[in-house]
Structure formats: C-alpha cells, structure tokens
C-alpha cells in the first residue's frame, strides 16, 4: 500500500525580480504513512515550511512549483483543479500555525471557530460538529469541555489556545495534520503540556502528521521518523531512534551538539574575580513596579514586588521565569524605560533616577539594553555603519575616520566582516542581526549589559554561536551581564548567578551551581523538570512526576496574600502558604529561597517526587 502522502522529487524555486530563479527546495522525496508522525527539521531558511505547505498544494507568493509531485493517496495535489484543492484543505489536510493567538479570531467564540471547517465543507451538521469538538476538548485534556465552546479566545490561557488550535485542525477528521513550529514560542512548562496533548490526540485519532520544527529535543518526543533539511536539501532521513542516537550526517551531529544540555549543577562559568570592587555594578533594592500610573504615584497593575538583587562587576546574572513573571519588566526598570514606583536602583553604589529622561548621558552610557528581536530593534532605514556609529558620536563625540575605524573594530568584535558597515539590516540573517544588535550596545563601552531574551528567537545552532560570542566578550571586557531568558538551559550555561522570578517576586537566588543543585524552590524544580531532553521517552517520564502534574497547565497568577505559587506547588501547605507571605531562607553560599518549607522538607519533598 502506498504511503498516505508522498513527496516525490519536489523542486520549488523562488523567482527574483530579474526573472532568474533560485532553488528553495531541491529534489526532496519522502513519504508519510497513516498514523505516522514525520518531523522536518532544519534552521530557518532551510525550506521546511515551504515543503510542509506544498502538501496543501500551496506556495508562498514569489515561489513556484518547478517539478516533482506531492501525492496524497496517489493524487498529485500540485496539479489539482482549484475546486478539489478547496475540498482538500481543511478537510483532508489541516494546518496548524505557530501562533494560536494569531490564528483565532478574537470576536468569535472558540466553538464557532473549532467547528467551522466541517460545517463549511458540509461534512457534519452543527450538532455532530459540536459533539466532535467536545470529544476533542476531552482528548486534549482541556478544562470544562462541555462549556468551553461558548468562551472567547482571550478567556483561556496561551497553552490552552494552542491545544484548541489542534482541536480546530482535527475537528474535520483530516487524514494529514501539518504542524508548523507549534510549540516554539511557548514557555517550557507550556510546551510540555501542549506536546503531551498533541502526542496523545494524534495517537488516538490515528492521523498522520508532518511536524515542522528546528528543535531536536521536541522532535525526539513526538516523531516516528525524521527528515533533516539544510538549504532545501535532505541531508538525512531515517527513523527517530536512528537519527537521534546514531546520526550519520555531520550537520545532524552539529545540530545535536548545539542542543544545550539540561540544566544541572556545575555548569556556571567561573566568575572573574579580578573585576570585583566594593560596590556591585548594578543593584536593585526593594523595587516595585507596574503599569498604569495613578494620581498618587502608585501603579494600577503591579508586576514586580520588592525585588532586591545585585549584579557583581564582571558577573553574569541570569533571570528566569515563565512569561508574565516580570523578567522583561525588571530589565525595563533597570534601564529606566519603566520608572520603578518604589525602591532604588544603584549603579556602582550611586543612586540612579527611576526615569531614564532624568539620568545623565554618562549614566545612560554605562547601562546598555540589548533588545530581544534584532529584526525590530535595528532601524531598517539605517546602515550598520550608522547604527553602530551613532552611540560612538553620541557618547564620545567621535567623528569621521576615528569613528569608522571603531565601527570596524566593533564588527570584528562580534565576528562579522567589516564590509557590513555599508549594509542594511534586511540583508543579513537573524543571527548576524543579533550580533549587530549586541555590537551597538557594546559601542557605548557599558558597565552593565541588559540582555532581554537575546537568543530566544534564534535557531539552535545560531543561538549557540551567539552564546559562545557572549562568553568571549565577557572574558575580554569585564562587562556585567543581566541575562534574561525563559530557557533555563541557556541561562545555566552562561550565568554565574541565577534569579528565579515568579509572579513578580524573587523566589530563589544564588550562584548557578547552588540554585541548580538541590534543595531548590518547588518552582525552580518545575522549570528544571520541564526543559526537554534529547532523549526518546523523556516526555512520558516527566509527565509521571508529581512536580509536573502539580505545576503544568496552570497560569501565572499574582496573589495579594500568601505565596503566588500556592496552586501549582506539590509541597504547598493549606492554611499557611495561601495565607502568609513566605519568609526568605538564607542557605549557605549566598543562596536564598523564599518558601515556607525548610531545607530538610525540600530534600524530603524531592525524594518523594
């Protein structure tokens, strides 16, 4: 019996303005059997999404099918007449995009959108479709399945919305499901919840799936077979066990090497003691901040509460937590973009004004901010020479030859060719842009560099290269880093000290080694447990654990009294944790945990779990 989907010697070209063509997909062949999950893995630009979309008989504008066939049950979808293509899409092949938030229409109820496709194609009547949707909600372990359909997208959490997108795709009982990076933008804790639900529902429905991603650890959990792509070529193709455990191609091995090891003790780099001075480079004392300034100077929505941290000179402070925990807000408070409502920020022992407009130019120079997305952080209308030259002129008054020379030095420092000074941002890859973004901050010769999720948007290999660069820069310059990420393994490999934020409070902080070795705060433990490992079967093992069961599939909520983590904590004490603010326990070696449980109880709790 032929496979369900056969991609046969597919070639897709991009047509440029001069009419010349560049190949995007070069002679790719593979097949998907019924009930099988095939992963397409590769970095951005490798053509993986283009191949996935071809199963719908679709190409992005500017691309064209040049040769080859994509056959669904023996019928070529590329040459299908438009009427049949319409029946094919949504009904026989369903597509799940990366962002659920962008897929759902906020003005319609969830139920209307989930049942739309089978109703539109006339497969089911409304009643049947609603029953089918409810069945799927149950299979996806969504809360309150019989009433969920009447709610609106903003009333459910991000992870739930992502799962609802799977319900939407599966409602019409498609033969093939295409998942395009469906967990890439999620927190680790949400990712694991979504992965688990996807895996279960695919198995239960017996649907075939094409899973597109750049993340090998995710692939290891869900795929039966793996196709490794690079620049439109298939480099390796085999079953999951073989590709992951015995990769034959050099590129696959390189992808594996770039996967950061799961966080564990002993990963932090040794701090450079030579830069130490009396004062910490940057200190934050009892800072509270939020949005929506009221008349009396307080804020309508508090995001950070009583945060106290200090970044030693030449050290790297990693800040972790799920989205919504206040990580980025903390960086914005430090830079002065968002003035703190209470507390003090000290730069080298000297107090800074909360609002950056009141800070003087030298203070601004000493604290530099590196934005998350280089794509939008670099002005598309300025050449790199201008982007890097401006801070030099602005802070140091450098002009002409001297300035050009320094720009060249900066480009060299971030390991880019000096000719890039004449280029515009759009001409570079994501990783290269991130390097320029970094160089702009370095141009000011700062003392503290605030890095907000600087590698989160990058592919595994590219991100690993940027981390290596950061390590070398740190060695050379003695700059202090505040490194924000939701990815614990990245932080673990780079930071000297870690601060764990939950719902705007510091729940644990200390040297990386200490924070990552027991005892830890239950939240830190949840984060550590959620980082996917490059190992088949990891997902099932993790979901068995008590920590995961208690903490996964819950949202970050700030509570006025007690501990905000109460409802997700496996060690919670009813009547204490939800009533009283937890005390700070100082353990040895500068390690502090904010929790009602004692050190002995932590260790006990961990053994029990």
């Amino acid at each position: 019996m032929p496979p369900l989907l056969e991609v046969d010697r597919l070639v897709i070209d991009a047509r440029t303005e001069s009419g010349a063509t560049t190949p995007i997909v070069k002679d790719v062949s593979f097949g998907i059997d019924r009930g099988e999950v095939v992963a397409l893995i590769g970095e951005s630009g490798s053509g993986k999404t283009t191949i996935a979309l071809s199963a719908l008989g679709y190409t992005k504008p500017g691309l064209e099918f040049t040769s080859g066939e994509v056959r669904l049950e023996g019928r070529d979808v590329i040459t299908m007449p438009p009427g049949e293509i319409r029946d094919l899409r949504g009904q026989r092949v369903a597509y799940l995009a990366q962002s659920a938030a962008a897929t759902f229409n906020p003005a319609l109820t969830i139920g209307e959108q989930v049942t739309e496709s089978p109703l539109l194609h006339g497969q089911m009547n409304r009643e049947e479709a609603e029953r089918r949707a409810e069945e799927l909600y149950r299979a996806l372990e969504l809360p309150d399945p019989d009433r969920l359909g009447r709610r609106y997208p903003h009333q459910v959490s991000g992870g739930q919305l992502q799962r609802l997108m799977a319900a939407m795709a599966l409602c019409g009982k498609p033969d093939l499901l295409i998942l395009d990076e469906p967990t890439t933008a999620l927190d680790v804790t949400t990712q694991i919840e979504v992965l688990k639900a996807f895996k279960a529902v695919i198995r239960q429905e017996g649907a075939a799936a094409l899973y597109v991603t750049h993340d090998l650890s995710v692939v290891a959990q869900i795929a039966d077979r793996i196709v490794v792509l690079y620049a439109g070529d298939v480099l390796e193709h085999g079953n999951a066990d073989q590709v992951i455990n015995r990769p034959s191609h050099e590129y696959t091995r390189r992808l594996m090497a770039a996967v950061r090891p799961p966080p564990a003790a002993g990963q932090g780099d040794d701090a450079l003691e030579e830069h130490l001075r009396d004062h910490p480079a940057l200190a934050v004392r009892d800072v509270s901040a939020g949005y929506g300034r009221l008349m009396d100077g307080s804020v309508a929505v508090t995001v950070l509460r009583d945060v106290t941290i200090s970044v030693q000179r030449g050290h790297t402070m990693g800040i972790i937590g799920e989205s919504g925990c206040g990580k980025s807000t903390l960086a914005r408070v430090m830079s002065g973009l968002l003035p703190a409502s209470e507390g003090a920020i000290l730069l080298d022992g000297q107090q800074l004004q909360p609002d950056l407009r009141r800070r003087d130019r030298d203070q601004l120079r000493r604290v530099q901010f590196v934005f998350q997305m280089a794509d939008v952080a670099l002005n598309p209308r300025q050449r790199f020479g201008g982007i890097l030259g401006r801070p030099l002129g602005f802070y140091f008054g450098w002009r002409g030859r001297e300035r050009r020379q320094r720009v060249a030095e900066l480009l060299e420092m971030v390991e880019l060719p000096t000719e890039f000074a004449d280029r515009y941002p759009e001409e570079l890859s994501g990783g290269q842009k991130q390097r320029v973004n970094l160089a702009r901050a370095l141009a000011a010769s700062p003392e503290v560099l605030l890095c907000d999720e600087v590698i989160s948007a990058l592919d595994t290999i590219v991100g690993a290269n940027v981390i290596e660069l950061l390590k070398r820069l740190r060695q050379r310059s003695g700059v202090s880093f505040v490194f924000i990420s939701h990815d614990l393994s990245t932080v673990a490999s780079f930071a000297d000290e870690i601060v764990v934020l939950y719902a705007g409070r510091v729940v644990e902080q200390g040297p990386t080694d200490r924070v990552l070795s027991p005892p830890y705060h239950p939240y830190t433990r949840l984060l550590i447990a959620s980082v996917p490992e490059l190992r088949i079967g990891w997902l099932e093992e993790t979901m068995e654990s008590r920590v995961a069961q208690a903490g996964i599939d819950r949202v970050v909520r700030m509570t006025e009294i007690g501990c905000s983590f109460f409802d997700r904590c496996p060690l919670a004490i009813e009547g204490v944790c939800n009533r009283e603010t937890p005390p700070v326990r100082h353990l040895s070696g500068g390690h502090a945990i904010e929790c009602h449980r004692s050190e002995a109880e932590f260790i006990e709790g961990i053994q029990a779990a």
Partner: protein
Amino acid sequence: MAETETSFEELPDAPPRRRLRLSWSGKLGVVVVAFWMVIVVIGPSISPYHEADILDEALFIVPGSDNPYPETDYQPPSAVAWLGTDYLGRDTLSRTLFGARTTIGISLASTLLAYLVGVTLGIAAAVGRPVLDSSLSRLNDAILSIPSIMLALIIIAAIGSTIPILIVLTGLIYASTVFRIARSLGLDVKVSDFVEAAKVRGEGLWWIITREILPNVAMPMATDFGLRFVYVILFISSLSFLGLGVQPPQSDWGSMVRESLSGLPYGSIAPLVPAMAIATLTIAINLIVDDVSAHSGGRLARRMI
C-alpha cells in the same frame, strides 16, 4: 568516511527586499505624468495662441464661401484650431496647454502645503504628550467633520478668490487628512524597539523624529502624496467648475469644463478635452501609486479608510 569540508553558513532570513519595479501600467502612468510635467514647463511657449485670445473670424472663413462672418464658437477641430474652440471662440488646445500650468501648479503647491502642515503636526501628535495629541486630534476631527467643499465655498465667498487664497485654503483643508495618516504611521513606528533603543541611549526628540521615525514613514507617505495630489486636482477643478476657483480669463481645466458645458448638446469636444486632461493625469498618478503601494507591502492601503 572522509570528513567533508562543508561549512554550514547561517542562512539569511528572507531574500532581500525587491527594488521598486513598475508594472506595465505603472510605466504607462510614468509616461503620462512625465508628458504633463513637460507641458507645465513648455506648454505656453508651444501653444499656437494665448489662452485669452478670442480667435478672429477671418481665420474661419472657408475659401470659396461667401459668408464673411462665420461662427467662431464651438468649432470642431480644424487646421486653425486643432482641438476646436470653446464657447467664446478661444482655442481649446492653447487653453489646455496654459491650463496645465495653472491646475498642476496650484495643486502641487496646495499638496506641498498640506504635507508641510499635516506631517509636522501629525508627527508632533504621535510623539508628543497625550495632551497635545488629544487636542490636535480633536481639532482635526472637527475640521474633518465639515464637508470640505462647503467650507471652501463659504470662505471663498467671504474673502474672494485669488490664487494664493486658493492654495492656502486647499492646503489647510487637505492638511487634516494628511495629519491623520502621519499620526497613525508615526504611532506605529514610535512603539518599535529601535525607537525604544534610541530612547534608552538618551536621544532627544529631534533625533527620534528625523532619524528614526520619518525615514520609516517616508515610503507610505510618498504613496499618499500621489493620491492626495489627485484629490487636490479634483478639488481645485470642482471649485473652478463652480466658478469659485481660477478666475477668467486665466484658464484652468476645471473652469474650462464648466464654461463649455453648454457645447455638449452641439457635439462640441471643448468640455471633453480638459476633462480628458484631468482624467489622464489623475489616473496616471493612481497607476504609479498602485505600484509603489504594492511595493511597500500594502501598509498604506490598510490605513486609508
């Protein structure tokens, strides 16, 4: 297995953005607009008569005819007047050639004025304090709520119609729509990370406006400039058609249509020639704008209404 010396370079995110390429209709637009721009410059010097000249009867005497006093108004095209004559017996071709300078000149000046005022205030509202933004925006809403042609009629009726008044009035009326677009484009760019980066660096308002915001709104604004220019041509022509725009004997396309409207029943082409001139110019500009707008990713189209 021999280790191959392949290096896996970082792949670029997207192919570089295409340079602006005109479609065949866009090219046609450029040709037509260029033609009219040439006419603006050389029109009066190549025109066979002056715009105010009423052609002499003698010119229309048909050889061999015994009628010494032939009709001169609404004459069909002939060797004497290539595009015929209007209701007073003036040469339509000459008046169209002269009128190009008046119509396009006034429109261009008005549009430039509208842009100067609209963009300055619009960007100021976008980056300024909330108080400035709301007061400018509400004032603008008030102006927008008055039908523009009525507003112009009342003011012209009160203070008369001269070319400078026409330019200033039209410029100010159209500044209100430019303001809206400039403000919304500015707001969009203002919240982007690179503007935030400039703020963290400590840049002043002037740098942020001129270096960070304006270059990024220039392309959509240029598209809008083309459209706005078309609206202004139509507006000036309508005013002239109503008799409140350019005053005789100066010619302008809008007033030419009105003056000779009564010739239509007699099959005269006198009103059609200036109407065609207005149509070709405005459609041609639109064709160019379409291409530019498609190039800038339809960013403007989303905002137009």
